[in-house]
């Protein structure tokens, strides 16, 4: 049995069936992300594991023991919440020491562990400050230290970075990943941000309407979305119907729809040399949008098909609106859904 094992988990709030027969395994030491839009059930599953919600049906196992009906404080799980959940009346030291004091450890040991953990999250000099004196990012790092200092079996992170500004969020993503690997702590991370999931995870489980839509490594999820929803949620896939695509590119991709990543489409003014497995069609540029490092061109093909193509921006625009271009892509990178 895996280190964490969810078995046929169902959760119903009133008439709302939030989790539907979820089976999920997490291996020890991994950082696993539950990814999905809001309301998809990812946070509810996390709260069921924490014991803050009761499952309607199903079983949860942790380290070989069933914990489905165990109260939260006896599960040995640490958690960091979306909003800043530090105790406002206690300073950083007392916040971090809270869980250790409940374990009735000797004072010297508590102090040593608190200082060590604050060192790891880089906040040693803030030890006597109060939460109100810290920035959002610092507060979340204290919350992380507070959750990890008791050496829980599992660390749960419920969108801990969603209230933090973009630049700091990127730094904290890397920081959390570093600390998680340094301590080897099994971690489940909940987010609706696909980039965050890509950066941090060993494994991603994509949630949709209470079910797991797709599971895999970040690379697998990104390059091989299994369903239309997965392709919509991840990356910036073009999702034309297969009929339109096949007509424009004179090919035979199976399925209802076709998923094409904009970065696999190359644009040239001259027709590229014909090769096996290279799909080529001529079209007209209808618009372009700058994303800083990338320019996203929209190209319209015969029959009304429009595809986005990403071109790395060097120092000038190679094409303008109204230009005729050849779009080419490798057939094996085109996914039929």
């Amino acid at each position: 049995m895996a280190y964490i094992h969810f078995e046929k988990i169902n959760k119903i709030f009133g008439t709302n069936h939030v989790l539907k027969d979820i089976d999920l395994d997490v291996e020890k030491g991994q950082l696993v992300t539950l990814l999905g839009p809001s309301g998809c059930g990812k946070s509810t599953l996390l709260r069921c594991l924490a014991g803050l919600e009761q499952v309607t049906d199903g079983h949860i196992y942790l380290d070989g023991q069933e914990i489905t009906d165990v109260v939260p404080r006896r599960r040995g799980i640490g958690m960091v919440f979306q909003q800043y959940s530090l105790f406002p009346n206690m300073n950083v030291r007392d916040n971090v020491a809270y869980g250790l004091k409940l374990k009735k450890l000797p004072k010297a040991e508590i102090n040593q562990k608190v200082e060590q953990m604050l060192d790891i999250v880089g906040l040693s000099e803030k030890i006597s400050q109060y939460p109100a004196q810290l920035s959002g990012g610092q507060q979340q790092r204290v919350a992380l230290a507070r959750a990890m200092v008791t050496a829980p079996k599992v660390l749960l992170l419920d969108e801990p970075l969603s209230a933090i500004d973009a630049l700091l969020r990127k730094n904290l993503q890397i920081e959390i990943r570093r600390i998680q690997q340094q301590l080897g702590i099994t971690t489940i991370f909940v987010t609706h941000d696909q980039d965050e999931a890509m950066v941090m995870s060993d494994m991603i489980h994509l949630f949709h309407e209470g079910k797991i839509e797709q599971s895999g490594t970040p690379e697998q999820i990104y390059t091989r979305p299994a369903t239309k929803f997965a392709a919509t949620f991840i990356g910036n896939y073009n999702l034309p119907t297969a009929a339109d695509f096949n007509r424009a590119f004179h090919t035979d991709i199976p399925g209802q729809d076709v998923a094409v990543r904009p970065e696999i489409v190359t644009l040239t003014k001259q027709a590229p040399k014909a090769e096996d497995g290279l799909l080529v069609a001529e079209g007209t540029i209808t618009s372009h949008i700058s994303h800083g490092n990338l320019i996203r061109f929209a190209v319209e093909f015969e029959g009304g098909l429009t595809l986005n193509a990403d071109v790395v921006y060097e120092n000038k625009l190679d094409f303008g609106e109204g230009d005729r271009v050849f779009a080419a892509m490798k057939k094996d990178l085109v996914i039929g859904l």
Partner: protein
Amino acid sequence: MRKGSKVSSNIIMTLVTVWLLIPLLATIIYSLFEDWTGIIPHGFTLANYQKIFTDTAFLTSMYQTLLVCVIPIVITILVVLLGLFVVTVYFPKLEKYMQILCMIPYTIQGVILSVSILILYAKGDTVLSGRMTMLIGAYCIIILPHIYNGIRNGMRAINMNMLLEAAEMLGESKLKAFFKVIVPNILTGITVSSLLAVGLLFGDYVIIRNLSSSNVNNMQKFLYQAMKRSSAEASAVFVVIMLITFAITAIVLTLQSRSTLEKIRNGGK
């Protein structure tokens, strides 16, 4: 703000302050002089104060006032805290009913309340029909809305459920977490509403007159009797009541600001 309007607003503020303070000052002066029939009072004396402070009835009334103030406040705070804990954590749907229940005493007049309590309980011979029990019970009802509002507003200012969940994940039980994490954070609300309650109960005459037997006397009752004897003595009693109220307020506020100051100092920023 324009300079002219600032001056005029200062004038208005000063006038209002003077208007409010005149009766107070007049009472103090009146209690300190033998005669104040002309414009200038004359014959400075502390006799009125000496008289009331050597009167055991006054000292007893002071002690009993404090007693019948503190006990209901402590009881009501505990009941409201526990009630709000249970309702917020386990039965959030009942919160609006609790609010309605706690607001009802706002609409009840002291006379009606005390007479109703007498009719309902006085004839029985249980512990509820004891005069002191009835009085403390009635005081709990009177201050309930104020205490409830103070505590509830304090709880609204913090994310109580999340703090409780955070403490629970660290290994604490919900009830202990409530007293260790939530209560310290709503202490300001509790303090302010307690002060309001002290003010209300110190000023009560109607309820204590109707409900208490002759051996329970609060300072308002003593004041009423002093008024019959001499108005200068009554003024002295009034001044003492006021000073005690000020002292209680000052002590509570100092304690509170000291703990706040300590936090900031330890914060070291």
